[in-house]
């Protein structure tokens, strides 16, 4: 359960953003979560709600966008989604995923700011 550490990092990042942008209130924080990031969505939202309580972000929502794993497939000659995190191979042709180009993201991607 390292989602609490992750939630605390998110809060820190957003507080810095609020300061630099002069934002007073945040309604929602958008994050992108790769299927191979090692972070569980529900645990992260739970941790965020608890950890943000006594901060400037109290009452804000954490909106999690889950990002699928995408590989560069040498066989298809293009980017393809993989079958699943348990089957890291091209969903189209089955070639092993040696070159993963997406799916490890752990990003704050946007803020809903009340002006």
């Amino acid at each position: 359960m390292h989602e609490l550490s992750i939630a605390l990092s998110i809060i820190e990042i957003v507080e810095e953003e609020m300061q630099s942008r002069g934002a007073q209130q945040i309604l929602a924080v958008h994050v992108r979560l790769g299927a191979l990031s090692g972070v569980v969505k529900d645990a992260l939202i739970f941790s965020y709600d608890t950890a943000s309580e006594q901060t400037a972000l109290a009452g804000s929502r954490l909106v999690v966008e889950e990002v699928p794993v995408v590989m560069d497939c040498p066989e298809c000659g293009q980017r393809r989604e993989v079958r699943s995190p348990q089957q890291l191979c091209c969903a189209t042709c089955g070639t092993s995923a040696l070159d993963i180009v997406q799916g490890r993201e752990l990003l704050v991607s946007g803020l809903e700011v009340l002006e």
Partner: protein
Amino acid sequence: MNSQPRIVEVRKNILKQNDVIARRLRERFQHEGIFVMSLVSSPGSGKTLFLEKLMSVLRHKYRVAALVGDLATENDALRLARSGAPVKQITTGTLCHLEASMVEQALNGWDVGPLDVLFVENVGNLVCPSSYDLGEKLRVVLMSVTEGEDKPLKYPTIFNGADLAVITKVDLAAAAEFDSLSLERNLRLVRPDIRIFYVSAKNGDAMDSCVDFLEAQIRTLRAPLHAERQIQAVT
């Protein structure tokens, strides 16, 4: 007053702080010619015994040390110290994984002298350590033959992030009805190019092949550094 919310685009890596420190560590290790290998596994898969045996062999040729993470107790550090190499405990308290800052702090307060090889034993956990880069060159995931061949499918993220899989306790393989073909198939589903070693740290089976592999890695890492020093010596 405009009360409509405005969407602001941001692009901030949540683990940026860890990644910055990990990069700093990696550059430091590269500069100082230290080969760093981290070990992850579930609790009880045999990280500590494997490492103890590895260090007792390598310390005759290289300056070897280990950092060992645990929630509580110094038992693992004491066991590793039996290898004769310097060992430092990182007690994480309630934290379920090591972070780059802990490795950096532990190193900064440690008068261990110049090193060739540093091992970092993570907290026994197959989930949380996967998100944190520690600045290591090589990440090894260990798993014992009693843990079930489908473990890589249950924890794909940690197996995907490892360079090397060491299957431990092979002396128990027959009793556990361990199926190596099934395990290898599962490992390659989540990390197609992973290298696999089978060992028994207890009776020493196949530890040599691991040692040989690591020595080759150490030599590769140090080759450019030696060449640079020789050029410096000549000029």
